[in-house]
């Protein structure tokens, strides 16, 4: 690091001052509160929902199975997860092109948890001015009690968050019992503390600084923007020149715009920017400035919407376009991916086979003169019902299979290993040849799967 570099960037020793965003009501803040309740409600409640004797949503890592309501995904179904992530990313692009940083303002976990931590802070320390006064005040019993109350709420909530997180990976009722009796395993304890700690630090202290310094989406979202993207914006043509004025004066006669320069929009901003300076990447689109400005406009008797959701074209008085190449391309891609996902998922095979050659011997010559190879066949039953499977071999002349019993029973959601002996008459196969082993459920002939293996015979 060079010295001029450091000076340019504000230096190594720039102290971080805490932002105390002023609390604000209004229609968009109500929407955000609803979003917080819905999203956190889903997060905290989902692992407690039972489904046919098990947890409805359980990413059972120890058993390597993901349960999502009626659906059970196996490691073999990994590509569904990848597909889902691609769909999620594309939806983000689509909504960004359409309506800007909706995700940041209403749905990002960072914003949502920060919001709840702010509520708890206000509950313990009061309004913004009270908080600032408390921070400057000497340590008294009251200050200690208020700070302790805040920490107690934060830590409890963070630990509950960590516990819920782990509850997605190990059955949550068992986990609750283990925690009550202090008998959680080392990794369970670790992950509860890790995720709880991350919540505490992220939502309690780092807050919107995460958006400013750590979020990649904040930096590249502008690539999805165009002149018709909905953004939070200050109507400069209407607002400027800004300035204070006495109530009831004709500001237009004095050459003033509608902005009374009350700085409310700056005071409520959780990232500490001034929206009047134009669109900035720090803006997380929380719409607090809209609500604050609307309130002020109501008070001074000007029409609302000096700061509002609008598009660049809209601000310039041009026609607003929702349908445009960018949104249509994103929408089409998204529709194709979602449809493909649904079709593939519903048509996915629920049985699988894995054929592994026995390593101990290449082949065995039987007393009856036939050549025998031994395989370990693993039958995968991903269905919710048990099935009986019949194993057949093909690809070799005169081939015969021998395994325990006429059928193999496999429990629902289980893997069954079966040693299978495959025999051919001597001379019908020379050297190595491909062999196909197939399984079919006796009760449902459509449940089939087959696997390839090498059959090895002596060369005569």
């Amino acid at each position, binding site marked *: 690091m060079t010295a001029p570099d450091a000076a340019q960037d504000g230096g190594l020793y720039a102290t971080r001052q805490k932002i105390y965003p002023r609390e604000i009501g209004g229609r968009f803040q109500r929407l955000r509160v609803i979003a917080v309740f819905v999203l956190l409600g889903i997060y905290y409640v989902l692992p407690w929902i039972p489904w046919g004797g098990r947890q409805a949503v359980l990413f059972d890592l120890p058993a390597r199975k993901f349960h999502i309501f009626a659906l059970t995904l196996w490691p073999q179904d990994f590509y569904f997860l990848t597909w889902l992530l691609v769909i999620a990313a594309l939806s983000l692009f689509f909504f960004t092109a359409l309506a800007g940083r909706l995700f940041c303002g209403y749905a990002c976990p960072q914003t949502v948890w920060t919001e709840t931590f702010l509520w708890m802070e206000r509950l313990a320390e009061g309004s913004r001015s009270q908080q600032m006064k408390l921070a400057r005040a000497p340590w008294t019993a009251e200050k200690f009690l208020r700070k302790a109350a805040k920490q107690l709420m934060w830590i409890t909530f963070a630990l509950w968050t960590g516990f819920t997180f782990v509850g997605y990976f190990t059955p949550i009722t068992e986990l609750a019992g283990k925690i009550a009796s202090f008998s959680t395993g080392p*990794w369970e304890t670790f992950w509860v503390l890790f995720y709880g700690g991350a919540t505490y630090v992220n939502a309690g202290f780092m807050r919107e600084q995460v958006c400013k310094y*750590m979020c990649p989406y904040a930096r590249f979202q502008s690539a999805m923007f165009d002149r018709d993207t909905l953004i939070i914006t200050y109507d400069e043509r209407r607002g400027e020149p800004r300035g204070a004025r006495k109530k009831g004066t004709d500001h237009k006669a004095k050459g003033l715009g509608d902005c009374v320069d009350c700085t409310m929009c*700056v005071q409520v901003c959780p990232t500490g920017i001034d929206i009047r300076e134009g669109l900035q990447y720090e803006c997380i689109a929380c719409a607090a400035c809209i609500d604050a400005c609307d309130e002020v406009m109501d008070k001074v008797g000007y029409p609302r919407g000096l700061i509002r959701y609008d598009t660049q074209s809209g601000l310039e008085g041009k026609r607003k376009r929702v349908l445009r190449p960018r949104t249509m391309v994103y929408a089409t891609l998204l529709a194709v991916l979602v449809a493909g996902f649904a079709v593939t998922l519903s048509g996915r095979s629920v049985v699988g086979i894995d054929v592994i050659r026995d390593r101990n011997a290449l082949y065995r010559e039987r007393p009856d003169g036939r050549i025998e190879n031994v395989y370990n066949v693993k039958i995968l039953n991903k269905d919710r019902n048990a099935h009986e499977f019949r194993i057949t071999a093909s690809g070799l002349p005169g081939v015969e299979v021998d395994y325990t019993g006429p059928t193999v029973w496999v429990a629902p959601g289980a893997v069954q290993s079966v040693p299978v002996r495959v025999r051919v008459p001597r001379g019908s196969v020379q050297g190595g040849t491909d062999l196909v082993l197939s399984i079919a459920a006796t009760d449902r002939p459509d449940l089939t799967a087959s696997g390839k293996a090498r059959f090895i015979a002596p060369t005569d």
Partner: protein
Amino acid sequence: MPLLGDEYTGTVRWPRLRQDVAIVTWPSFLVASVATMICFAFIDPVLVGNDDYPPPAFATRMSGYAIGFFFFWLISALSSLLTLYLARTAHPEPPETDKPDDWTRSAP
């Protein structure tokens, strides 16, 4: 704006060291999460090990996943750290000049 203190005017920023720690640990955390997911979708940790000398490398799947995750995090954090170091120690870009971009045309 005399009414406002620094904390309201967007000058609030993290010290350099904290920025560095954040931009090394966080992207590597994201990458490690994805790497862990992909890796253990294909590999069962309890089956990892040397065939000739049991026991396997990991006693339980959970420890395998966790150790795998921290391994990926460490590796990707090292990469982030090197990238940051190279970016920060590079010579600064030469300052922009007032000369036109297409100097050949303005040449006499």
